[in-house]
């Protein structure tokens, strides 16, 4: 079945969340319709390759999606200079996304730009009427973004919310039942939360980031390592963009 396309999306809003992080809404009804949390889009904003960004929300009625962008280099800088009303080439929704069906309750743990895809997971789980707890960790108060009512916030500096990292936030929870942990953030954080989940015998999924080209699974530049079932090989390479970006923590080698 050939039904996927590259789209042109109009920037309908643009806001600074802090000095180097922006939040955009883009008009793209097809992507808004099809997107599930954990998936991403690939956007033209640089000299040659597109750039991947997690989908931060989708509004089917308005036909819009949102993304959060931290400026780190040329492509994200260019994107930050795009104005409302301008058009970008966009591919999506891409990747596998989170499994939000198999569990009754979820704990979302995020840091860095990982809070964006988790925001979409939070919205969706809330709509589904599932039990969802959110813990976001930041360096200090000035970095706190995407906070919604009920979210548990931690700061390393201790000037807002719980002092410490995301693990301090998780330790503050009284866990009941068998919630599934979804964690998106810097690798050390995902490892920390993965180990925490393991020690509590909880299922945990992480969302990986790799340098990409196509974003659709045809070039094999974006591989992650997963444990192999074959005893003769140490690991297997799988595509972050197509087989991921979400993987079972027990399966992926971070």
């Amino acid at each position, binding site marked *: 079945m050939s039904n996927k396309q590259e789209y042109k999306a109009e920037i309908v809003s643009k806001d600074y969340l802090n000095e180097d992080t922006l939040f955009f809404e883009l008009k793209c009804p097809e992507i808004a319709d099809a997107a599930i949390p954990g998936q991403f889009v690939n956007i033209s904003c640089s000299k040659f390759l597109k750039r991947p960004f997690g989908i931060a929300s989708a509004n089917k009625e308005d036909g819009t999606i949102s993304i959060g962008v931290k400026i780190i280099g040329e492509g994200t800088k260019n994107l930050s200079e795009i104005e409302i009303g301008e058009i970008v080439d966009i591919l999506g929704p891409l990747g596998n996304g989170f499994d939000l069906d198999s569990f009754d309750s979820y704990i979302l743990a995020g840091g860095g730009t990982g809070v964006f895809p988790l925001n979409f997971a939070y919205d969706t789980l809330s709509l589904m009427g599932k039990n969802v707890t959110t813990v976001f960790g930041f360096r200090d108060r000035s970095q706190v973004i995407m906070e919604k009512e009920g979210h548990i916030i931690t700061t390393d500096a201790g000037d807002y919310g719980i002092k410490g990292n995301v693990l301090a936030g998780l330790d503050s929870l009284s866990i009941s039942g068998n919630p599934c942990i979804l964690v998106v953030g810097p690798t050390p954080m995902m490892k920390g939360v993965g180990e925490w989940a393991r020690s509590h015998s909880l299922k945990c999924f992480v969302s990986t980031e790799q340098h990409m080209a196509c974003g659709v699974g*045809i070039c094999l*530049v974006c591989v992650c390592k997963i444990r192999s079932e074959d005893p003769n*090989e140490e690991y297997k390479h799988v595509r972050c963009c197509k087989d991921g970006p979400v993987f079972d923590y027990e399966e992926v080698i971070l």
Partner: protein
Amino acid sequence: MSSRLNVKVGSVDLKSPVILASGTCNFGRELSEYYDLSVLGGLSSKGLTIKPRAGNEGCRVAECDSGMLNSVGLQNPGVDYFIEHELDYMRSLNTGVIVNVAGHSFDDYCGMVRKLDPFKEKIDVLEINLSCPNVKEGCMSIGSSPEQVKKIVSALRDLTTLPLWIKLTPNVSDITAPALAAQEGGADAIVLINTLLGMRINIKTRRPVVQNNTGGYSGPAVKPVAIRMVSECSRVLDIPIVGCGGIETAEDVVEFMIAGASAVEVGTASLIHPDAGLRITEGLERYCEDNKIENISSLTGTLELW
């Protein structure tokens, strides 16, 4: 698509001169979600080796001004898996099935062709990749020695009646030498070019961007090099040439054909726009219509040098 785009590469009939290049379309499954691949002349599989390969470690891509470096390192599931799980799928796409064969040694290439020859009903072409720059041994080092090219091609010629297209590396000083060697060995066509060896450096870490240190440069930046090589080879070869390197538009295809290509392969363009093959094919239809061209192959080799 109309018959205006039908071309012949030696004995091989193709619906269109537009083929998707190896390593930029996997085995067709992902791109067939974007368009019906039967509009294409063919699809060249990911480079296959006798045993599965995990490919290179670490970062495998570096963006460049008008292209990219890749150092995938021939990650592939191996030829046995391909035969069992991907070949029938490729055949079902109703387009030319080109199997890209890579290796580290003379024996590897022979072993590969022995394994593939029994499936000749399902395969249109064996594309012998003597040009991958991203693996330590074999491949590119074989392709840059005319003696070795001739030796391998003649050996493979004895093993199969399938058309053999020899894909050469541009990382040589005289491209006509390996091209002529391939022709003497019994090649049916030459594919020009694979990627140019390149390097990008992260100036903050003073380390190469790709962990393999070097990578293969592809995309629009390499197009002039490819066109020059197609033109040089077309003046000395009797066998057809399949042009490749930086093609993004129908006009690029026309340029390659005028230079001497009978067909072309589109690589990196599909990584930027998944439907690049379709856009280019539609553009070629329009080009033929606008210029009253009955068959696109009338362009091949019409270059007049100054």
